[in-house]
């Protein structure tokens, strides 16, 4: 019996089917470029940008945390690209992306000192508050385009210029798909490492974790930075894809609400779930906003509640620590 079990553990360690799956995932989506119509490719690209935010939320969820304001980092990443483009006249995509990642990293590094002291509802709501502040600041700043936001035009990929009309092109698509897969790979490796497992310990029992000698606040800070940086990258890619950003579409609470929604329904067990979840969501949304423009939030709310109340092992089980 014991031998058989060991076989299974060996399988887990050596033959890594997740990595194979990820490679398959990457090539499937690359091949879609040649197979699917433009609108579908566009939706896929957008869903991957957003999926990076969800991937970030998955990391937080591993530690038992959820943020109601992760749109803030999505917004920051996007504005970092738009501002670098417009203020510094940098058109090179890879530099722009680097700026969005940097923005997410720096801001979350500093805010992390504050939010890492909080858990549960406090953590969730403080992040909502932070995103509302960012929203308020942008809306009131004429130099940042206020509610109209910012646009970018022609971009260069390794000095190879692509004109403005062709935002969605083989370069931007590959960039998004490859970066997303890379991030999934990193997150996957991280979650399997001791560093990632520590998060589960923190989620399960903070008292025991600190008695083991884990510095919980530091670990949460680390994961907050990681998660926020992913969200910022998502925002940066989104601007490169769409060419435009507004505070309402990124930092406003409704967007964060959608992120939470997809994150909760996707669960935290698997790194593919956030991307697939985001893909479904984006396709449904493109129809729903057309057919039910006024009841979209309502539908999300209903599905969220039904999911939490009636999917016993899905959603709620991420947070199935019982109340004392």
């Amino acid at each position, binding site marked *: 019996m014991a031998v058989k079990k060991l076989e299974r553990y060996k399988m887990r360690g050596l033959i890594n089917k997740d990595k194979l799956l990820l490679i398959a995932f990457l090539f499937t989506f690359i091949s879609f470029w040649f197979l699917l119509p433009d609108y579908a490719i566009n939706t896929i690209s957008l869903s991957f940008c957003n999926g990076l935010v969800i991937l970030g939320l998955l990391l937080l969820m591993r530690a038992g945390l959820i943020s109601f304001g992760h749109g803030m980092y999505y917004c920051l990443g996007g504005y970092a690209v738009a501002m670098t483009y417009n203020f510094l006249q940098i058109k090179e995509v890879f530099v722009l992306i680097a700026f969005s990642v940097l923005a997410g990293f720096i801001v979350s590094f500093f805010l992390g000192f504050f939010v890492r002291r909080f858990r549960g509802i406090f953590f969730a709501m403080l992040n909502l508050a932070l995103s509302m502040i960012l929203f308020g600041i942008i809306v009131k700043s004429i130099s940042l385009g206020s509610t109209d936001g910012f646009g970018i035009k022609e971009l260069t990929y390794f000095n190879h210029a692509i004109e403005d009309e062709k935002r969605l092109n083989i370069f931007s698509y590959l960039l998004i798909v490859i970066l997303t897969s890379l991030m999934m790979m990193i997150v996957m490796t991280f979650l399997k490492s001791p560093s990632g497992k520590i998060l589960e310990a923190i989620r399960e029992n903070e008292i025991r974790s600190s008695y083991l000698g884990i510095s919980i606040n530091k670990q949460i800070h680390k994961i907050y930075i990681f998660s926020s940086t992913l969200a910022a990258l998502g925002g940066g890619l989104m601007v490169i894809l769409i060419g435009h950003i507004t505070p309402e579409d990124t930092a406003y609470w409704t967007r964060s*609400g959608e992120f939470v929604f997809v994150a909760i329904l996707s669960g935290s067990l698997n790194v593919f779930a956030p991307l697939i979840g985001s893909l479904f969501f984006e396709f449904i949304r493109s129809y729903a906003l057309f057919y039910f423009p006024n009841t979209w939030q*309502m539908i999300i709310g209903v599905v969220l*509640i039904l999911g939490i109340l009636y999917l016993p092992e899905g959603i709620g089980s991420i947070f199935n620590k019982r109340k004392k």
Partner: protein
Amino acid sequence: MASIPFIILDSLVYASWLFMVASGLTLIYGVMKVLNVAHGSLYAFGAYANAWLIGWYFNNYTEFEFLSFLFIPISALVIGIILGFLIEKFFLRKIYFRDEIVVVLVTYGLFLIFEDAMKLIFGTTSYLPYQPRMLLGNINVLSIPYVIYDLAIIGIAALIWFLFNFIIKFTKIGKLLLSVINDREMSSALGINVNKFFIYTFTFGCLLGCLGGAVSAPMISVVPGIGVEVIVLAFAVVVTGGLGSVTGAAIGALFIGLARTITIFYAPQLELFIVFFVMAIILSFKPEGLFGSKEVRKI
């Protein structure tokens, strides 16, 4: 140039408003350990109901204008009681034993539902039910004209605070409530009907949220999205004061009210920022809030 008495008065009015919208939130958390995100929607519902009634009344009648004040308690009572009861009975009751995050997600879902529901019911155009506020006119405070209606908010907030303290300190219900707050299981074992306390508390808290909205309606433009700002502000207030403490919420509201008024005079674009800045400063020194008790889990 703003004079000091004027700043103080403005702060007091704003603090009273904050306390009014935050008191229900902190009460519900204090008793039930539920952070009700839908509190913002209840505020918005109360505001919409009152705005609609006022609009309807002044469109159809020109006499007995003072009757329009009755719409405040009417909308608060009707909406607060109905929604409070329904939310508690059909959603929260099923999940009290779950993690706080799960509960907050459910109230968050309700919040999303209500946001659209209000758009469907009341439309997306703004309501400006200014008439009741005009009716009361102005009064000179230190030779500066001040709207009487706004000053009345201070009275309402004081009344709510007084009511809370009176109930807790001098009534039997208050004593039972305290025992429910201190030890839910023990109270239940002693024969106190905890479920009943929960439904009453929740409904009362919702009523306060609606009341806040109804009272505010004549002072604001009632538009979609007012709920979210209120829940975020109310959250800042109750966290600053200590989640679950009503007096804490009052003190927190005063701090934040003062900081905000000063900011509005000198740097209006930082309005929302300053609210959270005050909160962040206070939480940096006392993470459980001014009147919050640090909960050391017994191990």
